[in-house]
Each structure stands twice: as C-alpha cells, then as structure tokens.
C-alpha cells in the first residue's frame, strides 16, 4: 500500500493539547474534532489540508495526554500518514489502534521540507521526496499492523478476525 501527498511540517514535541485542545473534548465525533485539529499552532491547517496529505515532525510527536481524540482528529482531517523522528508512546499505540499510519524515520523527519510532495510505501518502508528526489528507508510495518491499518483500526481488525 502506498500513500502520497503534500507535507505539513512541524517541529519537536508537538503535544496532544495543540493537536486537539481539551476545550473541544466534550465530543469525540471525528467531524467535530477535525474542525479544530492543530488550530493552536497552525490556525489555517484545516482549510489547507487535502485528503492524502502527510504530516512530518521532529522528536516526541504526540506527547502529553492520552486522548485518542488526537490521532482521530488528524486522521479525520484527511492526513494519510505521520512521519516523525519518534513518537510519544501513548500516541503511538493510539494511532495504530485508530488506524492512523505512522512511521519513525529520523532522516526523513530532518530533511523533508514543508510543502514537499512525498510518497511512502508501507510494504517496503521507503519514503520518497518527489520534490527533492531524496529517498529514505524506514522500518516497514509488520503484517498484523498493516492489517490493523487496512481495517481502519483495532476494532475493525478485531471484528474481521471474529468473522474469519
């Protein structure tokens, strides 16, 4: 499976409070959450993001609260993949559970620029920056994680397992 899109680049320690501020947590509806995604550090994000676009950030992406609303908000915004140097552990787990693809790749996180067009292949882990021509290797997902992603998250994956 491949995804491609335009890059929204952020720095280190992007926390869950800026991904989705707590004042909006009175509803867990993805349509409501996407209206406020990233608004405290990037007000125009929701107007500029297109389906398939990719977020690239530095260290410790998703630090802070355990709110699953954060990966849900990013996914509902249309983001097809988040690439970071590394992720905070609860966010990492939550992303897989809700079916938001994430890749750890320090080199890509450093070199990819805001606005670049990039492509990522989940089977090989190869990330290609089509704007600069650079290629980066990340560790591909193991099979079961790919299946979780393909089923839209842990619930869909569990349901499909129960059906088989």
């Amino acid at each position: 499976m491949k995804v491609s899109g335009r890059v929204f680049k952020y720095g280190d320690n992007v926390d869950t409070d800026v991904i989705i501020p707590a004042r909006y947590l009175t509803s867990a509806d993805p349509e409501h959450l996407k209206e406020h995604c990233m608004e405290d550090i990037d007000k125009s994000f929701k107007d500029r993001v297109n389906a398939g676009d990719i977020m690239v950030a530095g260290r410790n992406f998703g630090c802070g609260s355990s709110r699953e609303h954060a990966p849900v908000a990013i996914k509902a915004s249309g983001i097809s993949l988040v690439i970071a140097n590394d992720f905070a552990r609860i966010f990492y787990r939550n992303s897989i559970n809700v079916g938001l693809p994430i890749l750890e790749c320090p080199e890509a996180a450093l070199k990819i620029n805001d606005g670049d067009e990039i492509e990522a292949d989940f089977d090989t882990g190869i990330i290609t920056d089509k704007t600069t021509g650079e290629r980066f290797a990340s560790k591909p997902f193991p099979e079961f994680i790919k299946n979780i992603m393909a089923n839209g998250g842990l619930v869909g994956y569990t349901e499909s397992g129960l059906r088989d």
Partner: protein
Amino acid sequence: MPMTMTQKILADHAGLDSVAPGDLIEAKLDYVLGNDVTTPPAIKVFEKLGVKDVFDKDRVLMIQDHFTPNKDIKSAELNKTMRCFAREHEITHYYELGRREMGIEHVILPDNGIVLPGDLVIGADSHTCTYGALGSFSTGVGSTDLACAMARGVTWFKVPEAIKVNLTGRFKKFVTGKDLILTIIGMIGVDGALYKSLEFDGDGIKALSMDGRLTVCNMAIECGAKNGIFPVDNYTLKYISRTNPERFIKSDYKVYTADEDAEYSQVLDINLDDIDLTVALPHLPSNTKKASECTDMKIDQVVIGSCTNGRLEDIGAAATILKGLKVHKDVRCIVIPGSQKVYRQALDNGWLQDLDDAGCVISTCGPCLGGHMGVLAKGERCVSTTNRNFVGRMGDPESEVILSGVPVAASSAVLGRVGTPDEL
C-alpha cells in the same frame, strides 16, 4: 535474567518467569480505569465489539473528574453515558460527586486503598503512572485499549528498558517531590525517558513522603516515561495500613524488588540537597529554572491542586504558608482539594478557613487542561501546581502557565509574581 521492579511485575502478570526489554507480552490487569473524557468513546468501542459484560465489575473503575460538575450540555451528555453504563454494569467504583469516596482519579485510587503494591493498572489518562509511588506498575492508554481491556482484563505491553534514579541526601526547607520531578524533566528533557520506566532508588527516597512520591510518579509521563516506580518501604506499608487495613493485615499485596544486577540504560545520581525550589516556564515542563531567578514575572492567577498536587499534604502546605496573609489584589488563587476526603480533612483541620481568610476560592478540578473553573484569557499568566504548561493548555493559546510546587505557588499568590516562601 536479572530484572527491574517493572520487568518483574510485567513478567508475573504475564505468567512468565522472566522478561527482557523489547519483549511483547500479554498481561493480566488488576485494574482498568477511565474518566469522563476517555470512557464515553471507550463505551462506544465496547458496544461495537458486541461484548455483554465487563471482565470484572470490581476492577473496572469509572471516575468523572475532568468536566464535573458538568460544565455544559455536551459534558453532561458524556457523563450521562458513563453513569448509565456504570449503573447497567453495576460498576463498584463509580461514585457520584460529593460522596466520601469521590475525587480526582489519581488522588482516590491510592487514597481509597484500591491500588496496592505489585498491582498492574492501566488507565485511559496519561497520569495513570501516578500509582508507581506504591510499588505498582501503572501506565496510560487510549480509549480503544481501555475498551478492549474492559472486555478482557488483559492487554499487551512492550517490556520497557529502565532508567535508574538514584537519590541521596535530604530536601532543603520547602523543597518537595514536585521540585525533584521538575528537575529530572529539566535534566533529561520531555522525551528523555521515552518508552522507558523510571525506577527510583537510594537512601534519598526516605526524604519523600507518600504524597511526594505520588507527585513524582504522576509526572513521569512528562519526560516520556511509560511509568515511574518507587520501591516499597516502611512509608509505603504505613500508608497502605491506613488506606486498606483489611488487605494490609492479610498481606494481600506483593512487594517486588529490583535485582542487584538489573540492567539500566542510564543511571541518574541526584543529591536532594542540591535541588532548589524549581519552576517550569512556558511552554514545556522541561523548561526549568530556579524559582528565585524568575521573581520579575508578574502573574494573574494561581492554581493549587490537581492530580499532581491536590493531596492532603499539599493543601496543608498551602494553608500553612497563606495563614494570616492575603492573596495579592491582582491575583485569583484557586485551591482544589483533590478528593472529598482531602476536602473534609482540610475543613476539620481549619485549613479551608485559613485559605478563605487569605482570599482563595475553593473549587473542583478542571483548570489544568483548560476545561473550566479557571480558564485563562489572552495574555494572562498562571503559576500552577499542575503538570503541563503546553501552548493553550489552560486557556487562550497566548496565555502562559508556569509549573511549580505548592510553596512557590502559595508564595506567588501573595506576592503577585513568581516568588518563594522566604520572601514573605
């Protein structure tokens, strides 16, 4: 293979003789916790899974503490979802506001004697790591993990590497566990313990009260740690003899000790004598500085309380400092006893009277995450004993939060700026 405290608890709950860092294991859970923000989405997932009952109604805990008493219609609906589920499934540890058992989740689970040494707890709240203070393993998860754990009473873990924090010495006057954990976060950064456990050891742990240890472990997540954990000592045993005498007498708990030759990816040696009253300036908990170097920073609000610093010792420290003094005319000082028990004890001790005389308002929790009960306007600055000072955490994206322990917060309330008790 030698193991740390965390590794031993995980191995035991997975039915294994030993585990090593990086192992993926499925472990049995003693308690599964959710709050009013994270439980309603979990209930949705739980219902979608088509499971009839929770795995154990005594071991699934549901605590409404973020947006309560309900701040608006939407939060009232969230709480109603939880209340209905709790009643239908006869959840033992679900309480309505005002009951003697009720309070902030991370204050009442230890204080009501629910969590004991050796327990394995997950909670859909990042500060679930608090209970490591009792020698248990506890960590935060999201709502989907919560739902699956509610159904099955098990979850998977990756066994973490550990950082050992070796403590020596004694705190100087007014310095507390909050200053210690802020100092550690300042040293290693907000991702310094990412995916790892933070294991405390050394003679210096005797300088930390149980309330102090709970504060330290509460903020382990703020340096990225999976959990923080203290060894069980006489303080722990005395604490649980009060919180759960029945199980204490029967020795119905388990003490895990790290092997002498357990491996650590890093060892931090900290002499408590060297720690000063510390603050974390906006907008990261790692942005630490001595409080005495920030006395030119004017403030608009002070918050004393939360799951980090809302325990009896904290409210007592605030009352002792503020007794006979007045909160600065330009400052609102909000004090939040962390539970109904803490509130009542503070009332019986005359502390609420002292705080009231000083001009504080006594409230319930909510300002920490900008929920309600003390949200900041644009340009406002707050000294807070809470745990995060991210952009917009307590209100407007252009407001500021300075984290501190109770002595600095209480002193700052009087001074109208960041300050320390020796200035009063």
